[in-house]
């Protein structure tokens, strides 16, 4: 193996790059959020912005809403993805190939693309509504259920699922196919039912990657802006939209507050991810060492 010094040397370019962009930006955000913002003559270090963020009831509701929303859509993506991955694992031959190809397409397309497709398809003036209208199943386009910009964020959830289910499927399939031994056979031979084999054997074996996928999905849902902006409900804002709106209002004195919100969002995501990782790790004691 490479010596420690060589390792440091090899990692230097990455570290420089990482420090320059990521850490730098993050530290700047923290400093600004603490009230040090020389451009508008703010120099006093204070926690006021955090306090005001936390005492703002709308911020708290929006955060809570975003959290629940992210949890639910990430969980849905994982459950459906898990189901599909297990089905796919069992199919063989040409269908497996076709289906695998098919799951790659959503991963490749940007969210905007899917938003566009959804707007065309399921909005009240969209294609499906139009067809139903033509067929006479509904008498006006208002009767078609509100699926985009709706208070339940259904449009956003559908977009996220469309992107994230294939991601879950792909990563789980990788794990499943790297397990050369089919432990389910062993479980069946020892008298387990299908459900027992799944709960006691398959699930524990893939739980690490499942939780990883969940964390990635959750963080994305929690922090991404463009989809809720386009498809979300204006009254029931989600956190990223809320923060971005603050940011583009252009009130430069509000900058520390925006940064405080940003830091809260990031730190919360990180802590949440760490907790999940911790849980996942404690569930897979067998995998260490």
């Amino acid at each position, binding site marked *: 193996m490479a010596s420690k010094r060589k390792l440091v040397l090899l990692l230097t370019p990455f570290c420089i790059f990482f420090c320059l*962009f*990521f850490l730098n930006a993050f530290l700047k955000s923290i400093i600004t959020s603490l009230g040090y913002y020389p451009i508008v003559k703010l120099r006093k270090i204070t926690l006021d912005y955090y306090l005001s963020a936390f005492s703002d009831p709308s911020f708290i509701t929006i955060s809570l809403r975003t959290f629940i929303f992210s949890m639910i859509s990430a969980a849905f993506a994982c459950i459906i993805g898990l189901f599909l991955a297990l089905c796919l694992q069992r199919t063989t031959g040409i269908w497996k190939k076709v289906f695998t190809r098919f799951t790659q397409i959503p991963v490749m397309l*940007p969210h*905007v*693309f899917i938003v566009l497709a959804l707007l065309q398809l399921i909005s009240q003036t969209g294609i499906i509504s139009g067809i139903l209208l033509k067929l006479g199943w509904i008498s006006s386009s208002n009767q078609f259920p509100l699926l985009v910009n709706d208070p339940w964020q259904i449009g956003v959830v559908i977009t996220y699922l469309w992107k994230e289910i294939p991601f879950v499927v792909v990563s789980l399939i990788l794990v499943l196919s790297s397990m050369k031994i089919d432990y389910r056979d062993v479980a069946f031979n020892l008298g387990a039912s299908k459900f027992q084999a799944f709960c006691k054997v398959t699930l524990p074996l893939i739980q690490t990657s499942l939780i990883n996928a969940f964390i990635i999905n959750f963080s994305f849902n929690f922090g991404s802006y463009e989809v809720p902006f386009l498809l979300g409900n204006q009254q029931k804002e989600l956190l990223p939209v809320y923060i971005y709106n603050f940011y583009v209002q252009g009130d430069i004195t509000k900058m520390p507050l925006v940064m405080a919100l940003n830091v809260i969002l990031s730190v919360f995501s990180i802590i949440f991810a760490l907790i999940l990782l911790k849980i996942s790790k404690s569930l897979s004691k067998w995998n260490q060492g």
Partner: protein
Amino acid sequence: MIKYGINGSYFGVVSVHCMFCLPYAIKLLEDNLALYGDKYEGVSTNLGANWWQTFIRVTLPLSKNGLKGAILMTYIVSMTQYLATLMIGDGKYLTLSVRMFPFTQAGRYKIAAIYAITFLIVTIIPLYIIEKVLIFRRGRHLS
């Protein structure tokens, strides 16, 4: 960012994309490498190869799958990056997804759809080529 004057520069946009792509690339390649450990590198060194030969002839071919995944994934991440491109690029660097966004927002679906189709082509064709080129040799399945 603003301070370093890379705002609105090509370098800035590339760097930010790079930053978003790196985690994916690192994760995929690391998983791939972990699959084999360093035992084959050991064999190679033992047979008299130097580190460069080992890297070219052993490590790189073994990382083929991870590399393929990493290239595909980072390409996609970069292609679909919207907000970062917009903010760092100062709106001057129009990638397809940046261009598409306002049209979608404004409800000009026809133009947006044209961009979407372009996007589809620009994404799928290179990905297809990458995938084909990177398959050096197909594994044979012994029954």
